[in-house]
Every structure is written in C-alpha cells, then in structure tokens.
C-alpha cells in the first residue's frame, strides 16, 4: 500500500489552481487562447503572475457558505420584523431602486465578463483569479436581488429591474458602460473593472450606498454590503496586480495601459454622477456630501495611489482636474435632470426640504445659493400653483457616456459643455473632453451607441407617445414615476407611520 504525504498549504494551493492548467499539444496555445494578443499588450512570462486571491476552491466554498448563512439569517429576520418600516423615510427607498435597477445588473455583467477572462487568458493563474471573481459577482447579484425583494412587496419601481436595465433611458448609462468594457479585449476589460472601477473608484459607490443604508436604518442592505466586502477586497487586489503585471512584463505596455486608465477613469466618473445625486439627495440622513467623498476617496487616496504607481511611469488619469473642478455641481446637475424627467423615471424626485437646502448651502458654499437654490424656489412656486414642472421634450445625449448633456463647462457653471466630432460626414456630440477623446479614438465602436432618445424617435421603443414608451419599459404609470409628493409610496408610508406619529404627539 502506498501512502501519500499530506500536501503543505502551498503545494495544495499550486496543485489546486495552476496545477489544473496545462500546455496544449494537439493545437498550438495561440490558437487555443486567441483573444489576449490583439490589444498589443505583451506578456512574456505568465508564470510571473502573482495570484492575488490565495484561495483554493474548497476553501472558497467554505468561506462563502458561512457568509451566506449569516446574510440569509439577517434577511429573514428583517422580513419577519417588517424592517422596511424602520427606515428613516420612504424617500430613502429611491436609493434602493437606483441600486437594484442600475448596479445589481452590473454585478451580473461582471460575472459574465470575468467568466470570459477565466477562459481566455493564457496564464492559468490569471484564469483562476478571474473565475473566482466571476463566481463572486454572481453571488453579489443574487444576494442583492434576494435582499431587496422584501422592499418590492411594499414600494413601487422595484418589480422588473432586469427588463428595465435593458430599456430605460437613464439605465443605458450603466448598461453601455459595462457593454463597452465587455466588448473590449480582456486586458482592457480587467483594467476597466478591476483597476479603474474596483480599485480607484469603488469607495465612491459603496460608501454612499452602504453607509447611507446604515445611517438610514436599512439593516438588510448593510448586511449584503458586509457580505460582499471581503470579496471586494480580493477584487481590489486583483486590480492592482493586473496593472503591475502588465507594466512589469514589457515597457511597451505603458502607453496602452495609460490610455485604458484615462478612458475608464472618465467613464467611471460619469457613471458615478448618478451615485452623486443619490448620495446628496436620496438619503434623508446624510452621510457626507459628494464633494467631501470625492476629496477623501479620489483627491487624497487617488493621488497617493498614483504617486505609488509613478515608479512604473503611470500618470494620474487624464482630465482628473476637470472631475475635481465640478465636484460642487455634479450631484445638483444630475438631481435637477431627474426632476426634469421624473415622469419618465422609475424613481420619484422632490424639491429638497428647507433643512436639506441649509445643508447644501453649508456643503456647497460656492454654488448652491447662487445657482441651485433659486432653481428649486422657482420650481416650488410652480408646484404651489399646481404646475409641477416636467420637461416634456427629450434631451440631447452624449454619444459615449449616454448621460443627457447636462454637465457644465469645467470652468463655467453657467454654460453646458458641448463637444462635437465629425466622422464620415456625420456629427457626434459628447459632453466633455474626456468623452470626446474616447469617441475620437474609436469612432468605429461608438457610432453604434444605442442612444435611448434617438431610438425612441426611430420608433424602436414601443410607440410614439410617452405612455407607449413607459409601458414598453414595464413601468406602472402613476405609481413608479412622477413626483414623490402624492405618490402611492408616500401615501402608504404615511398610513403605516400615521399611528406612530399620533402616539409620539400625545
């Protein structure tokens, strides 16, 4: 009888990860892995890849199962105790609507994107890392659906997120962002998602949502956030590893990697403009302002990161100064846009309360009282006269980020930034120098942007009237859309909380 020596942890790790790969002999490796060369990234030695996760599958299942047990215990308790009644205000639920329709489908997209990398990278170490992240992303998508399904029983706008993600005008912003990454080569995808998003910008997504949930007593959302957190730290490690690996493999990779970082910083920043509005406006109890978050997580942390990376020759992403220059406007420009088009959105909007406006004046001293407060005063007056303002005409969209062209010039708050490119006799409009550069580098790709406004005018979105289009979006008209004041969400909330308020008053 032969006895086998028990493997050390390191040996076991090697056998269970890279040891599962092999060099093919029936077909040349280049034919088996045909998609990681065309971007021009040169890899000479895949074995130099440092595995960021240090996990084998058996250990992975054990950790994840433990996290799931804890999460689902909390979700059950939350449901049984009618946890939704404990949140600060029904307005808060609009942050969850944004999350479920705009972010959760991205988790699923990431699951698909990393599954592709898990097949197509030549190096077995990189494939294993991508496969594990792919499974993480599927888990995040599922836990988010499960957690938020409780809210779907009590609030409008949460009933069909996957369908909405594919059709609704403002959701084309996250959708096109991810599809741009998924249709790029594997190195661009991993730079876009693992580095530019998960490493550089992720705190600007998760801090607003998860701290916002904690501040607004939404324990269910806090719990799925915690459950994802240890996965996210592994994902960040992958993000920094891929950058260092590409830059250490060949000097010629530097300009390509720099261009990917420039592009995906700007695309991520534009995507986060939606989060800025959620953060400043949808949280009844505020965590910190968008401008403060930008200072902490980008101006300070980002500068430190790029200082560290400068030894590889990398520079801060192009146009980062412009992103910083508009930090005192971003959330207001987006919220007022949703206020314009709330009749066509599956969220509610409202005019901020007096105390919120005071908070804005304090947090945005150079912009709020000068520009945005008068706008809200004008709209409040119109609403009092029974003429709540809705913009009845569809807006111009940016060809690249697909956000309505609402962003002001970085050096002039009074003017919208218009950029235009000519390509093969047709005009293409973009919202910024960053988006224009992305278009002009690869117009062959962006001429096919599925711009919701143009698609509606071409007759591809259910019909010619607003009502036809909203039905095609699967909106419940008069419930999912329109002003918060007077909405079914508000009515139900007041009915549930009426007795509590009466008791408090006695």
């Amino acid at each position: 009888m032969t006895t086998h020596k028990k493997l050390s942890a390191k040996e076991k790790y090697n056998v269970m990860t890279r040891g599962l790969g092999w060099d093919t002999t029936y077909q040349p490796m280049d034919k088996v892995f045909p998609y990681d060369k065309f971007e021009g990234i040169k890899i000479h030695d895949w074995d130099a890849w440092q595995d960021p996760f240090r996990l084998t599958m058996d250990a992975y299942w054990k950790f994840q199962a433990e996290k799931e047990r804890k999460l689902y215990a909390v979700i059950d308790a939350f449901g049984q105790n009618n946890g939704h009644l404990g949140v600060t205000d029904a307005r808060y639920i609009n942050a969850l609507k944004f999350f479920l329709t705009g972010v959760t489908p991205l988790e699923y997209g990431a699951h698909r994107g990393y599954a592709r990398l898990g097949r197509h990278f030549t190096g077995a170490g990189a494939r294993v890392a991508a496969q594990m992240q792919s499974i993480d992303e599927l888990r995040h998508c599922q836990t988010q659906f499960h957690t938020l399904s409780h809210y779907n029983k009590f609030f409008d706008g949460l009933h069909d997120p996957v369908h909405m993600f594919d059709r609704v005008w403002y959701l084309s912003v996250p959708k096109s962002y991810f599809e741009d990454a998924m249709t790029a080569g594997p190195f661009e995808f991993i730079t876009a998602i693992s580095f530019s998003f998960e490493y550089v910008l992720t705190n600007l997504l998760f801090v607003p949502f998860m701290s916002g949930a904690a501040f607004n007593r939404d324990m269910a959302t806090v719990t799925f956030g915690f459950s994802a957190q240890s996965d996210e730290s592994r994902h960040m490690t992958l993000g920094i590893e891929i950058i260092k690996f590409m830059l250490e493999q060949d000097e010629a990779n530097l300009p390509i990697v720099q261009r990917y970082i420039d592009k995906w910083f700007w695309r991520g920043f534009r995507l986060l403009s939606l989060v800025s509005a959620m953060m400043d406006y949808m949280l009844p109890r505020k965590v910190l302002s968008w401008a403060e978050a930008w200072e902490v997580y980008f101006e300070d942390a980002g500068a430190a990161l790029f200082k560290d990376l400068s030894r590889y020759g990398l520079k801060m992403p192009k146009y980062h100064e412009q992103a910083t220059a508009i930090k005192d406007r971003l959330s207001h420009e987006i919220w007022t846009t949703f206020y314009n088009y709330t009749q066509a959105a599956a969220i509610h909007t409202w005019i901020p309360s007096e105390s919120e406006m005071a908070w804005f004046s304090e947090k945005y001293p150079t912009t709020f009282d000068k520009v945005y407060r008068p706008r809200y005063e004008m709209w409040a007056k119109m609403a009092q006269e029974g003429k709540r303002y809705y913009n009845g005409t569809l807006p111009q969209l940016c060809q690249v980020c697909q956000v309505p062209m609402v962003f002001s010039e970085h050096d002039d708050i009074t003017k919208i930034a218009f950029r235009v490119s000519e390509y093969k006799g047709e005009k293409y409009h973009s919202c910024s120098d960053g988006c224009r550069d992305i278009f002009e580098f690869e117009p062959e790709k962006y001429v096919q942007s599925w711009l919701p406004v143009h698609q509606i005018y071409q007759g591809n979105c259910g019909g010619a009237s607003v009502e036809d289009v909203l039905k095609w979006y699967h909106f419940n008209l008069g419930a999912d859309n329109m002003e918060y004041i007077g909405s079914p969400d508000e009515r139900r909330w007041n009915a549930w909380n009426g007795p509590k308020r009466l008791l408090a008053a006695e």
Partner: protein
Amino acid sequence: MAVTASKPGYHGPFLDKVENFHGNQIVYLHWEEHLMFCAALAFPLPPEMPFRDVVEKIIPASYSLHPDFEKIDWSQVRWMLDGKTFVPDLDKSLKDLGIGHKSLIRFWTPGLSGYRGSFS
C-alpha cells in the same frame, strides 16, 4: 486611429444615420442661461420645415413654461448654429439654412438670464 478589435477592420453599424428617422432629421435646440431646461432638447424635424415654424411652434411648445419666455424680444435673439454665429431667415427651410442632421442650435435672449438672474 484604428479601432482595437480581434477582427481587423471591424466597424460597427451606424445606428443614427438620417435614413433611420422616417424622413425627419434630428435637431438639437438649447436656450442659453435657462438651465431649468437641464440640457439641449432633441427634435425630429422634417428638413423642409421653415425656420419660422421652429420659432413659432417648436420652441414655444417646449420652452414656454419658463417665466422669462413671454419677455423674449425675438428681434434681439442671438443664434449659433454648430458653433458659428447664425442669422436665420425665417422663411427658409432647415435644409436651405444649412441645418443638418444632428445640428445644434443655441440661442441667447439678451436681458434674460433666468429666474432672478440665476441662469435657471
């Protein structure tokens, strides 16, 4: 710069060519210094439409909600077409005025800069 693609010479389809708009072309309009309207607005218009209809029908239907609107002196309005100063002849068509598919028309209304001068 050529697109980075696994298939050399890749080119995506043109989704917004003018033929896709059923005889219309897209024209963007933007009333400067009135950011209550958060962006330029997009309109599908026939190229034969006289500019007079833009001023007398299209613009009022979308912009008259603003309290400044009735104060506009149309003889004083400054126009810009695709980045260049522009003096429209009201009786000429969009096509004859050089307003093409996805042209952007910005207009300024002197003396009017939004609600209480706030550019809103």
